[in-house]
């Protein structure tokens, strides 16, 4: 089995607080790999260790091995840049650069890396927009600012932006969390289409979505991997069932806590 990402004994701290504890996962090549778990369990943190975005957070400390395409990205600086150039990312909230045009948003990655110019760049942008199913909707207004698009379109634009750098690995951090069901379905369709060609790591808290899209995955709870394997075994496996119950129980108390916190904040 070809492996795209291999993480071994990974621990992450934010200052004194431990966010991930001795996590080990293996992401097979060319599959959709789901990272499941309740909110605040470290899913996003885990995803961000793969392309080192985690280092942007204040006081973040990483320990352990993260191998992407066989390269240890935290211990081989010169190589890791080249490796990470093949990793794209899509975020929870659609975040196209609002002051740039639709075209420039897609072109920015390849432009910065000097991957394409002129006609070639035009072609690449078109390819990425077609891939993300946005081309027909925006082909007549490529020079309009991205902020004019709807939320769902913006998210597909972000996918196009990530695809334009021709990634071999796409990191997706709850890409449908802030979308209506119709747009969410479109994105899911997209992920399915892409899944044969590139490896996708998908963070989600929605077990149904994971079952629909992923072939394997891991369930995280309080910064630890509680089980990993084929997606069915995670969601339906008896061992995981027990944990699932625990998790959902914890989840409900957690959300009620955060809700009451929010109310307090709003005052």
């Amino acid at each position: 089995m070809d492996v795209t990402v291999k993480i071994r004994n990974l621990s992450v701290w934010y200052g004194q607080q431990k966010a991930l504890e001795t996590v080990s996962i293996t992401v097979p090549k060319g599959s959709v790999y789901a990272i499941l778990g309740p909110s605040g369990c470290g899913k996003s943190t885990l995803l961000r260790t793969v392309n080192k975005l985690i280092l942007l957070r204040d006081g973040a400390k990483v320990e352990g091995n993260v191998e992407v395409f066989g390269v240890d990205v935290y211990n081989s600086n010169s190589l890791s840049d080249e490796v990470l150039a093949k990793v794209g990312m899509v975020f929870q909230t659609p975040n196209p650069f609002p002051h740039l045009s639709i075209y420039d948003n897609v072109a920015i990655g390849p432009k910065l890396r000097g991957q394409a110019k002129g006609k070639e760049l035009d072609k690449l942008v078109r390819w990425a927009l077609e891939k993300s199913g946005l081309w027909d909707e925006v082909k007549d207004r490529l020079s309009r600012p991205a902020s004019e698009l709807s939320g769902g379109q913006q998210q597909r634009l972000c996918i196009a932006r990530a695809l334009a750098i021709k990634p071999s690995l796409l990191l997706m951090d709850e890409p449908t969390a802030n979308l209506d069901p119709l747009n969410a379905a479109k994105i899911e369709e997209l992920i399915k289409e892409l899944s044969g060609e590139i490896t996708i790591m998908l963070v989600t808290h929605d077990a149904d979505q994971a079952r629909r899209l992923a072939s394997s995955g891991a369930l995280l709870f309080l910064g630890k991997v509680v089980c990993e394997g084929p997606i069915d075994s995670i969601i339906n496996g008896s061992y995981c069932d027990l944990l699932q119950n625990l998790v959902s129980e914890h989840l409900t108390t957690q959300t009620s806590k955060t809700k009451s916190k929010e109310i307090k904040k709003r005052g």
Partner: protein
Amino acid sequence: MKLDPLKILLSPAAIALIIVSASILAVLVYESLNTWIQDGIGFLLRLEWSPSEETYGTYGMLAPFLGSLVTAVIAMTVAGALSTALAVFVNEYAPKRFNNFISLALFSMAALPTIVYGMWGLSVFAPAVRQSGLASLCAMGSPTGYSVFTAGVVVGLMIAPFSAAMVLEAYRAVPFTYVEALHSLGAKGFERAGVILGLIKGSIIASALLSFGRAIGETTIVAMTVGNVINLPLCPFQPAHTITSLIASQFGNAYLYPGLQSRLLAGALVMVIGSSVSTSLGMWLARVTARRLKGESL
């Protein structure tokens, strides 16, 4: 409606404040009325300056008017460039542990009275400009080092901490997800800065407008460093006057010269309008940009 005792208690102070600001405007307009009636905008377009104690002298304020503009533009440029550079340095290149030190340093600089910068300009920067020989670039360059350039730069340095605070705030207010997106695309420091500066362009222009408004009205530093000569500021290393330095040097005795006080107050009114428009525009733009940035992050 019942009378609210709190309103009654607080209103006199507010009314006093309103009276103060109304009388400032009233005095400016009333005292300069003569100028506007006799001359309209003409005094601003005339070059000749020949004071007289007996009759109405000619007080053309074109030179100091342009002096104010040039000085303020230089100051705005210096403050804008330095504060933008600082924002990029702090956010894209400098280690995070410098943040506290830099904000403390900026705070201290902002707390220094303008006269302190004036003194520095007078005894450190102006002599440095003189020794640099830059004045030889101008046909009528200043032999003393006091010039439009000197005044503009020192005013710019005085304003820079304020403008830097504003640009830094805007830079930090950019939602983190954009920063992450840029990193995920592999953008380097200058590329990230390019995109983010584009994102907060409005705030940068706003801070420039506020700087301009502040610089136009700055008196102390300018009077100490601009050279105080009525001179068209055709070249930056020439000594000149601004409206404020002219007022500072002439207003005390202006009542001896018929018509001069009215001209100077008319100049002050023009300056108030210029600085008000620039400042209001800047504050409006800053608000709009901040609101848009917040809205777009959702």
